[in-house]
């Protein structure tokens, strides 16, 4: 990666504060820290700036387009030689917070050594001031015998974070909340413990 390209990584002090708050909320809510075997996640805030248009895409570059939507998912063949693999994010809203998830199947024994979010200049031309945002990951094999395939498929998904929760989690959280409410109401009405005793 040419050094002139990276203008901002995750991130400035205020950005980090925001990120950590979101991450904490998610971690406490889901109690997931440290136990997700096949998923790595990252919460980031897109810094203000002028970004390249979501319409301008090339077929070859790995990218996720979030135009007119607050979530996107894509499957990418990622090399397992521990090199940096970038996925460009198009259509992200400056100032907004997102969660990126990197999921791989346990059938492919790899480990993700690094994940991150970065903002680069969209081209090396000095007059071009537009930016591009990317999430990146570095993957290596972790098995015996070694994986024969030079790449593994990895799902990269990005979702906007609202009230500290990624939008793609809302349906699950609401469902679980409804389920727990139903159990509570049933228990209040029928006293399931007493029913068990008298079963």
């Amino acid at each position, binding site marked *: 990666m040419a050094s002139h390209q990276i203008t901002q990584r995750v991130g400035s002090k205020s950005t980090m504060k925001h990120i950590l708050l979101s991450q904490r909320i998610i971690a406490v809510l*889901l109690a997931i820290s440290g136990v997700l075997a096949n998923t790595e996640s990252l919460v980031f805030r897109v810094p203000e700036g002028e970004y390249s248009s979501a319409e301008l895409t090339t077929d070859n570059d790995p990218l996720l387009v979030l135009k007119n939507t607050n979530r996107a998912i894509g499957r990418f063949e990622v090399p397992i030689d521990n090199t940096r693999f970038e996925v460009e994010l198009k259509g992200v809203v400056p100032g907004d917070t997102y969660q990126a998830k990197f999921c791989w199947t346990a059938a492919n024994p790899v480990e993700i050594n690094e994940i991150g979010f970065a903002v680069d200049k969209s081209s090396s031309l000095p007059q071009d001031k537009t930016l591009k945002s990317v999430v990146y990951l570095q993957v290596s094999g972790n098995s015996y015998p070694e994986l024969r395939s030079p790449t593994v498929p990895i*799902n990269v998904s990005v979702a906007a974070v609202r009230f500290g929760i990624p939008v793609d989690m809302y349906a699950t959280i609401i469902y679980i909340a409804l389920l727990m409410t139903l159990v509570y109401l049933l228990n209040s009405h029928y006293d399931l413990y007493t029913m068990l*005793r008298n*079963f």
Partner: protein
Amino acid sequence: MNACKITGFFVAAKAVQYLIVFCTPVDQFDTSTKLFLAQYVAEKEIETWINVRFWNKLLAWDAVFFLKTAMTNARPEFEHENAFSSLWSLILRSASRDSTNIYTILKTGVIIENLLHYGAAALLYQLTLKTFESNVLKSHHIHNLAKLSTILFIASSAAGFCLGVYSEPLSTFFTLLGMICRERTIHFDVYGNLRICWLKWPLYAIFSTACFTVAFINRPICIILGSYYLFDLFYLIKARQYKQAMFMPCVSGCCMFVIFLYHQYYLPFQVYCPERGEWCLNTIFDLPVSYRSLYSYIQDYYWNNGILRYWTLNNIPNFLFALPNVVVMWYATVYFSHQYPCFNLKSLVFMSRVFLIIMAFFAHTQVINRVSTFIPLHLWYVADRINKLYQGKDTPMKGDDKLIRYYVGWLLFWIPLQTALYASFLPPA
């Protein structure tokens, strides 16, 4: 009558759990299931209405390993996949008539899983009757105890893990069968000495040993079942029953130990060494065995299991998930040692304590919710306290009874919650 009630409860409980799975939103937190499926079946088949809403959701966490090994004819492709029972994968593959369609194997696996769970429930009922017949319970109390234990076993904290293709029900089935075989051969005389009937030698030395062996080949933690033979050996020697000690627990224990060495040490060495290096390097007296078992190496290297390694701040939620079972299992060991001492439960009390120590200090502690299904002691404790509870209308519960009430209350919420979390591919694993 109890059989009908238990069967009805089993069907109803499973139906509710599968309904929860079906209603869970299709977008899982971990999206890797489709990546896994895409390696074996066409996109079109993955995306059918029923697969998206039901079958794909059962493929979370370790289910992937069992199915993958079943697809590769029970031969693990990578070293770490040996942590997951090849025996169970072989059963899945064979039962699905060597099908290479992953959905056929999955559906067959789900049927077998439920049959084993139901079979294990029936065995637990019988085991409870047999275990407590020599104790001071009245007949209707024993049947009630058996019924309640079985209900608690069906509605256990393993919840969603018993819906798919996890290997626990297989070990549980054979553990309970082995316990029944052993329990039917032993008795205690009026002086409290252990006696084993010679006529029932095959039941003890062959069948119970075979059952426990299948259980630990499937799930290595079940090796602690060998404690039965150590205790029996000790009591028989103490009672000067040397011949019985030699030809029963000694033979059984030795068989288990030899098979354990063969399965966990010798066999992996033949497959992987010396090319593998690492764990192959430290051999015992240049024999073709390493001082370390492959399973222990895998748990250490790939899953970072080891003494106190899980005791970190970020794992506090996982300890909280495990807390109800840890507390109830510990109280169960105290209860059957002091408040309601049963001589024939001494070895099981010992096993439960060893199991708790392993879970608390060496393993990913929250797995106790799933793995503890092969130990019935805490179920008997909970069932016995509920059974003996004569509560007046306004009498507040105390001590054990209060604990049991909280535990059952936790189960009521935990089972649907964990089922939904599993279907959403969310922790705890």
